[in-house]
């Protein structure tokens, strides 16, 4: 099988002894064009990969910052079709950057499981994480992902059982999303370092590289996660808050995002 973009990225970073920095933003916030520019800035400022959300009004795993981001996109009339088109444009401009979707299951099954994965693959998406599909219920989603060459990504929360952890290791591809803490997304409560044993257990079970998310908002959090054994860190709310703060001044928004990504990426070195 052809080495995928995630594998290439982790191989390249390992050679340089670096971790991956992966920012998350909601596609279409505050509108389709600005969203494209934002993602472009993230990559241009050093993001190793992208985690992109599709707006959903019932985002039960998300805190207030990401919720507001979703609502802004929805109010701008952004649909999943717009988001897939955005992915296509991002892929055209950045052919090597791993790009994952993070979304809620109803948006997938509404378009039809297989058609959604096929459309996403066609738009250049590398992985899909369905926030409300736990690995134990993921059979048909894994099947659709496998058939279309999309990597299914699963979450490892602090309270995961041994059985579920093994299932995540068996079925997850691309990377493994390890939660930095319980709760929903947000920079208001910072990560607690997952125990090094967690990363060892995932490696021993043959899981895809572990990346920590939830509560990662400073370079210090990135360093802590990597020191504990993670292969990278995902940060969402902190960057999205910068978008929100500078909605009326695009130049300042891009400047703030550039500074943020550079700082966070620097911490992976």
């Amino acid at each position, binding site marked *: 099988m052809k080495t995928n973009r995630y594998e290439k990225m982790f191989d390249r970073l390992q050679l340089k002894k670096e971790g991956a920095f992966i920012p998350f933003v909601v596609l279409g916030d505050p509108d389709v064009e600005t969203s494209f520019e934002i993602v472009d800035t993230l990559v241009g400022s050093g993001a190793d990969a992208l985690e992109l959300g599709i707006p959903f009004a019932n985002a039960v795993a*998300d805190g207030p910052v990401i919720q507001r981001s979703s609502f802004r996109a929805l109010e701008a009339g952004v649909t*999943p079709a717009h988001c897939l088109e955005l992915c296509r444009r991002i892929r055209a401009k950045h052919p090597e950057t791993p790009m994952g979707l993070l979304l809620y299951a109803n948006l997938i099954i509404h378009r039809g499981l297989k058609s959604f994965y096929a459309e996403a693959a066609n738009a250049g998406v590398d992985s899909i994480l369905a926030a409300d599909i736990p690995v134990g219920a993921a059979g048909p989603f894994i099947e659709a992902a496998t058939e279309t060459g999309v990597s299914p990504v699963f*979450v490892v929360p602090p309270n995961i059982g041994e059985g579920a952890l093994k299932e995540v290791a068996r079925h997850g591809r691309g990377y493994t999303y390890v939660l930095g803490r319980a709760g929903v997304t947000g920079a208001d409560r910072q990560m607690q370092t997952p125990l090094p044993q967690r990363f060892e257990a995932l490696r021993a079970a043959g899981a895809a590289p572990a990346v920590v998310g939830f509560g990662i908002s400073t370079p210090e959090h990135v360093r802590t996660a990597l020191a504990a054994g993670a292969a990278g860190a995902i940060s969402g709310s902190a960057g999205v808050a910068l978008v929100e703060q500078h909605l009326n001044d695009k130049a300042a928004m891009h400047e703030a995002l550039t500074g943020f990504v550079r700082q966070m990426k620097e911490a992976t070195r």
Partner: protein
Amino acid sequence: MVDSTQMASLNITHGAFGPFGGMFVPEILVPTLNELAHAFEDAQTDVSFQREFETLLKEYAGRETPLYCCRNLTAGTKAKLYLKREDLLHGGAHKTNQVLGQALLARRMGKTRLIAETGAGQHGVATALVGALFKMQTCIYMGATDMKRQAPNVFRMRLMGAEVVPVEGGSGTLKDAVNEALRDWSQSYPNTHYLLGTAAGPHPFPTMVREFQRVIGREAKAQMLEREGRLPDAAIACVGGGSNAIGLFADFIEEASVRLIGVEPAGHGLHTDKHGATLQKGRPGILHGTYSYVLQDAHGQVAESHSISAGLDYPGVGPQHAQLYADGRAEYVGIRDDEALEAFQRLSREEGIIPALESAHAIAHALKLAKAATQPQLLLVNLSGRGDKDVEHVRQHLLF
């Protein structure tokens, strides 16, 4: 009626109702839901648990509730209309049945804090009263819109020591309150039980809530047999999430002669976009942890529902109702806001019973059936709650 091209094959293994149900939640909630499912299964066969539950239902909540045959409402028709008087239950609605069961389970699991969502406020009031009874810290999430239209219930909850947290997101109604409660639980699970208020949500809630509400139909069946010597021709209940309806239906599902009729809120009319008729106008989807019918737009975004009654204002529905609908075992019909308001007034004026606006939907449909009856008909309606909470809201609508 069911468009099979809209169905997803999800191979549901936990809490399946035919192709519906399941446990579609973030991974972090899975261990907690499994713990709850095991505690519930153990309790079902634990004699001391069942005895305490029954004692509380009897001595604290006031079971059994009466079955009342309306004296005036169906005069001149061929129908007899029996009301299962859950409105007389402590707390003012059927909700008290299942909160007692879940609070006992919470205590059994060693939880010290309860959270709940509420729409009309009835489930919030019920959760607040068990919170007081079991000395548990209680936090109720309630949509900001609902807090305005159900102000008396907000005060009741606070009076019983519960914290009521307004939810501003979305439309500020029941679905947004559920979202917020799920977010709370994803962090608070070590000491907190989420006391979900209806027979929807992820496994084991649809099964557990049905079992704790089953007493409604069990009693009504026995009372009807005693009074009439036969089963009713139809069992009728309003459906928001569907807990009072599934509680009434559960013991009649195997009785093929009994029509099961769920009454959904048709709001301004089923031809408009202002209603909450999830089964009749929605399509299969995943909302709040379960695969069932969901009101949604052309892109899969969950639609905003509408009903004059906050307790029915929900764009989802319990998965067993989806199954009963898909199988054709139960019928689901719509009653508009204005029809519910009329039934609310008629039951008040003609029987001296002020029903909850939710239950008024079921009454309105029963009155339609009574009027159309050409043969003697025995109609059984679950009068799921009383209308005290709605009096001010209705007064504003009618401009008395």
